[in-house]
C-alpha cells in the first residue's frame, strides 16, 4: 500500500491553491490549443518552457500535464463539429463523430467523448500510479519485429474502414503510403518524393493531410452542391446530452478503448493513433448497429477511439516517469523541462523526486475532473455552431483550417499542400473514394516500413525473426485469424443453414 500513501502525499502537493490554479490554467489552455489544428501540446509546452525559470517545478509540471490532457479533450471537439481534427489522435473521432453531428446528435457525440475521455483518462492515470513498473517491463520487450507484427495486425483490422468497395479503399490506402513516404528516409538519409523542395524533406504533417482531405475537401464538395440539394446539417435533435440508450451503447467501448489505449501508449513506439484505429475497428465489428457506421454516425465509433486516445496519453507517461524515456514529442519536451530544474529524468526519478512525480500523478486525476466539468457545459455552446447557416459555417471552417495549418510552421508550402489535398479530397468525395484510409496508410505505412527495415538490419536480413519471437508470432497469428477467421465463420454458418437441404432423403 506504499503506492496509496505516495498518492495521498501527491494529492497534498496538488491540492494547494496555487497548484490547483495552475492545473486550471493548464487544462483551459490545453483545451483551447487542442481545438486549433496545428497548435499541439508539444509546441505549446515548448513555447512555455521559459516559465520554468520563474516557478516551482511542481507548478510547471502540473501546468504541462494539464495542457497535455486538455489537448486530448479539445481535439475531439472540432473533429466532431467541423470535421477538422485538431490533433492526429482525434482523426478517427471525426469519422463517426461528424456524421453524428450532421444527423443532429452532435451533443451526444461531444458528451460521449468528454465522459469517455474522463473514464479512460482516470483508468489510465490509475494504471500509471499502480501498474507502471510492470507495464514498462512488458513494453520494453517490444522490438522492431514485434512492432512490425503489430502493424500487420493493425492493417488487417483497419480494413474495416476501407468502405464498401475494397478496390477504392485500397487505392486510398496506397495513396496514403505515397504521401507518408515523402521526406528524408530515416534509415538511409535519402530524400524521397521531395522534388528538390527543402520544405518537403521533413515529410508532410498528418494533420495537414487530415484537415485538407476532411475539412477542405468537404467544404469544396458542399460548395459545389450548394444549389443542387438541401442543407445537410440537421441542428440538434432530441436531448442535448446522451440518452439512456446512448449511455448503454457507450460504456463498453469506453472500457475497451481504455484497455487498448493504455498498453499501446506505454510502448516506446506505440503512439496515440494506432490505438484509435484499433478501437474503431473493434467497435465496428462488435456493434449491433453496424448500419449506422458511416451513415448517420454510430456512437460506439466515437466513444471507443476517444477513450483509447486519452488512455494512451496516460500510457505515454509510464516510460517517461519510470525510466525517463521520452516516447512522444510532448514527453520529450516535458523531460527537457526537468533539465531546466537540474533534475535528470531517468530510472531513479521515482525515488529521487517522489514529491514531484506523485504530485504530477495526483494533478492528472484533478485535471481529468476539471476537464469533464469544463467540457460538459460547453457542449451547449458548441452545438450552437451547427445552427450557423451552411455558407457561413463552411467559410468559417475554411478560414479555421487555413489559419491552423499556417500555424504549424508558418510555411506557405504547407498551405499549398493543404489546398492540393483539399482538391484531392473533393475529387475523392465526388467519385466515392473513402478518405480515412489515406490517413491510416500515411501513419501505418511508414511505421511498418521503418520497423521492418530495422528488424532486417538487426537480424542481418533473416526474416524468420518474425516467427521466432513469441510475441511477434502471437501478433501475426492474431492477424491471420483476423484475416481468415470471418471467412471460415461465414462458411460454417453457410453450411449449417443450408446443410439440411443438401441431405438427400431428408424429410
Amino acid at each position, binding site marked *: 500500500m506504499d503506492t496509496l500513501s505516495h498518492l495521498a502525499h501527491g494529492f497534498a502537493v496538488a491540492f494547494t*491553491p*496555487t497548484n490547483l*490554479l495552475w492545473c486550471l*490554467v493548464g487544462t483551459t*489552455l490545453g483545451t483551447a490549443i487542442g481545438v486549433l489544428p496545428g497548435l499541439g501540446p*508539444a*509546441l*505549446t*509546452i*515548448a*513555447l*512555455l*518552457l*521559459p*516559465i520554468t525559470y520563474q*516557478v516551482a517545478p511542481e*507548478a510547471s509540471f502540473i*501546468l504541462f500535464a494539464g495542457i497535455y490532457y486538455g489537448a486530448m479533450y479539445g481535439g475531439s471537439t472540432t473533429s466532431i463539429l467541423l470535421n477538422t481534427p485538431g490533433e492526429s489522435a482525434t482523426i478517427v473521432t471525426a469519422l463517426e463523430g461528424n456524421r453524428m453531428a450532421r444527423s443532429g446528435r452532435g451533443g451526444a457525440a461531444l458528451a460521449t467523448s468528454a465522459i469517455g475521455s474522463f473514464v479512460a483518462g482516470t483508468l489510465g492515470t490509475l494504471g500509471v500510479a499502480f501498474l507502471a513498473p510492470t507495464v514498462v517491463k512488458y*513494453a*520494453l*520487450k*517490444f*522490438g*522492431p519485429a514485434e512492432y512490425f507484427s503489430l502493424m500487420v495486425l493493425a492493417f488487417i483490422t483497419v480494413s474495416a474502414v476501407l468502405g464498401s468497395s475494397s478496390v477504392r479503399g485500397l487505392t486510398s490506402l496506397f495513396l496514403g503510403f505515397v504521401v507518408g513516404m515523402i521526406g*528524408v*528516409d*530515416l*534509415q*538511409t*538519409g*535519402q*530524400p524521397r518524393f521531395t522534388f528538390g523542395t*527543402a*520544405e518537403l*524533406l*521533413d515529410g508532410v504533417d498528418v494533420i495537414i493531410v487530415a484537415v485538407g482531405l476532411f475539412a477542405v475537401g468537404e467544404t469544396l464538395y458542399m460548395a459545389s452542391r450548394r444549389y443542387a440539394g438541401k442543407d445537410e446539417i440537421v441542428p440538434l435533435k432530441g436531448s442535448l446530452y446522451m440518452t439512456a440508450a446512448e449511455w448503454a451503447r457507450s460504456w463498453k467501448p469506453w472500457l475497451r478503448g481504455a484497455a487498448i489505449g493504455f498498453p499501446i501508449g506505454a510502448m*516506446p*513506439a506505440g503512439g496515440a493513433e494506432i490505438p484509435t484505429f484499433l478501437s474503431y475497428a473493434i467497435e465496428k465489428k462488435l456493434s449491433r448497429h453496424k448500419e449506422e457506421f458511416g451513415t448517420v454516425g454510430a456512437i460506439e465509433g466515437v466513444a471507443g477511439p476517444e477513450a483509447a486516445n486519452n488512455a494512451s496519453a496516460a500510457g505515454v507517461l509510464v*516510460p517517461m516517469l519510470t*525510466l*525517463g*524515456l*521520452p*516516447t512522444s*514529442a510532448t*514527453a*520529450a*519536451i516535458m523531460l*527537457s523541462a526537468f*533539465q531546466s530544474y*537540474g533534475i*535528470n529524468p*531517468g*530510472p*531513479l526519478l521515482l525515488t529521487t523526486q517522489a514529491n514531484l512525480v506523485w504530485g504530477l500523478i495526483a494533478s492528472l486525476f484533478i485535471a481529468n475532473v476539471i476537464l469533464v466539468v469544463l467540457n460538459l457545459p460547453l457542449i451547449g455552446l458548441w452545438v450552437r455552431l451547427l445552427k450557423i447557416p451552411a455558407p457561413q459555417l463552411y467559410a468559417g471552417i475554411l478560414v479555421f483550417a487555413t489559419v491552423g495549418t499556417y500555424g504549424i*510552421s508558418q*510555411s506557405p508550402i504547407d498551405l499549398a499542400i493543404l489546398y492540393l489535398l483539399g482538391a484531392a479530397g473533393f475529387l475523392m468525395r465526388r467519385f466515392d473514394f473513402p478518405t480515412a484510409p489515406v490517413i491510416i496508410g500515411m501513419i501505418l505505412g511508414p511505421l511498418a516500413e521503418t520497423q521492418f527495415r530495422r528488424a532486417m*538490419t*538487426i537480424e*542481418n536480413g533473416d526474416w524468420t525473426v518474425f516467427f521466432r519471437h513469441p510475441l511477434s508470432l502471437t501478433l501475426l497469428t492474431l492477424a491471420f485469424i483476423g484475416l481468415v477467421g470471418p471467412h471460415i465463420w461465414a462458411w460454417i454458418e453457410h453450411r449449417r443453414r443450408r446443410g439440411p437441404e443438401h441431405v438427400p432423403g431428408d424429410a
Partner: protein
Amino acid sequence: MLNRRKFLTTTAAVGAAGFAALHLAPALAQDAPQIQIFVPAAPGGGWDQTARTIDQVLRSEKLISGSQITNVGGAGGTVGLPQFVNQWKGKGNSLMVAGMVMVGAIIANKAANNLTEVTPIARLTGEFEALVVPAESPFKTAADFVAALKADPTKVPVAGGSAGGSDHILFGLIAKTAGVPAANLSYVPFAGGGEALSALLGNQVAAGISGYGEFSEQIKAGALRLLAISADKRQDGIDAPTLKEAGFDVELFNWRGVFAPPGVSDDDKAAMIKLIETMAKSDAWATECKNRNWTPILLTGDDYAKFVTEDTARIGAILKDLGLA
C-alpha cells in the same frame, strides 16, 4: 493561507502564459540592446534550448533588454538557413543558432546555402557522445566492441539517431580508425533518443551511440554500461576512458554555436563577439551548462571560422564513406 507575493507571481504568470509565445520579454532597461535570435529548428530541440538559454542568461546578466526568438524549423536547419542568409542580411543585432547537425544536413541534403555565407561569432557548447552497451552485454571495453566489429560488422547492430547525424558519424569514424569498411556497418537509426534507449534496454541491439546526456541516468542506474566517450579528455564524475585512451584516435563534439547574418559591419561583429564572450564567462551560463550536460567549448571569431571549415571537410569525408554524400 496563500501568501500575497506567490499569488501575484502566479496571476502574473497566468497572464504572461498567453503572451509568452509572442513576446518573451518587455523592454525594461532602455540602454541595453535588444537582440533577435533565429532558430532554424522547431521549439523544444537542442538549438531552441540553446537560444532560450542565451536569452535567459543575457537578460539576467543585464547585457540585453530583451530578445525575440524566431523559429523556422525543418531538414536539419537547411530550411531556415536560406531565410537567414537572404532576409536577415546586414542585421547587426541578430544571431542564428546552429551546429554540427547543420553541417551534416547541408552536405547530405545538397543544400544551396552553406555556413561560409554567414558570419561566425562563437562556438559555445558541445555535447560529447557516449558508446554504451546493455548491462548484460559481453562487451566490457571499447576494444571488445571493436574486435567484434572487425570480426563481422553485420553481427553488431548499433542504435543511434537519424542516418547521417552525429551518432552515425561517430560510428563511421570509429569503424574507419579500426579499418572496418563503413559500408558494411549495421547502423539502426531511431528518430528520437527515447526509442533508441528502449531498444538498448530491451536488449535488441548490441550497442548504442548518442549524446552522453541521453544515457547518463541509465548508466548511473546500472541499466547500461559506458564503454567510452568521445570527449578530448576524461570528464569529472564519469568513469570511462575517452576513445583516444581506449586506442581509437577519434574525438567528436556535437557542437553548437552562433552566427551573425552575412554583410554585418566589423563593429557590429566585434560587439556581438564581445557580448557572447561576456555571457559565456558568466556564472549563470556555467550553471545552465552544468544542468544541461553541455560542455562549454568557447571559440570565437576567426578561430571559430577556421574550425567550421575544418569540421565541414571532416564530416563531408565521413558522410561520403557512409554513402550519404
